[in-house]
């Protein structure tokens, strides 16, 4: 679960970077829901982790998905939801 959240986080960041290219801003319509799924998985992974178990990957996934969502949303608004 923790590795899955990290995978979702990295993919969301890659999607966000591609979405920053000119005319590819509409990719964020796919990337933001994807990052939301990653965020949910990260939260579940964090809550499922037992006492003393490392949560580094889940936190990394959470942060990456959050960053991808935030910047994706800004990019989407800046491009008028299309560009």
């Amino acid at each position, binding site marked *: 679960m*923790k*590795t899955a959240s*990290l*995978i979702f986080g*990295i*993919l969301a960041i*890659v999607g966000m970077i591609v979405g920053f*290219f*000119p*005319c*590819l801003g*509409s990719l964020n319509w796919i990337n933001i829901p994807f990052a939301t799924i990653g965020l949910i998985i990260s939260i579940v992974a964090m809550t499922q982790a037992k006492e003393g178990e490392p949560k580094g*990957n889940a936190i990394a996934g959470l942060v990456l998905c959050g960053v991808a969502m935030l910047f994706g949303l800004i990019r989407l608004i800046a491009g008028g939801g*299309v*560009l």
Partner: protein
Amino acid sequence: MVGLSGSTLLGKFKKDNVNNRKQIKYREQKLALLIVWTIITLIITIVILFPFFADRQTVLKNAPTCISKSQFNVECSLCGMTRAFIEISNGSFSNAIDLNRGSIVIFFTFALNFFIFIFYLIFKLRSTKIIDDT
């Protein structure tokens, strides 16, 4: 073992121990990166191989139209990339450059990534003895 002093052996043991701990620590991150690389390579491979197997009309019909060109009639930096990839698949590189100057670089970067990935997989499978050397 013979010829090594106690302090050298202790140093070697400590170094190996630190290396092993590092490998265990970053194993999950490496796995995550490998999975991400695999997914991206699969998508890229489909993108670069699609013009080779589908005819021109099918590719152009399935490719999305650039919003910049359709709405504002201004070509963006990625405009003409699909047509350029079709031209590359037909072997006419000069036409591809005319359509989009960056197409050749992007196409060969994608191709290079694919070959590096394949070589990495072969190397990895050999090192884990899944592929028999005999």
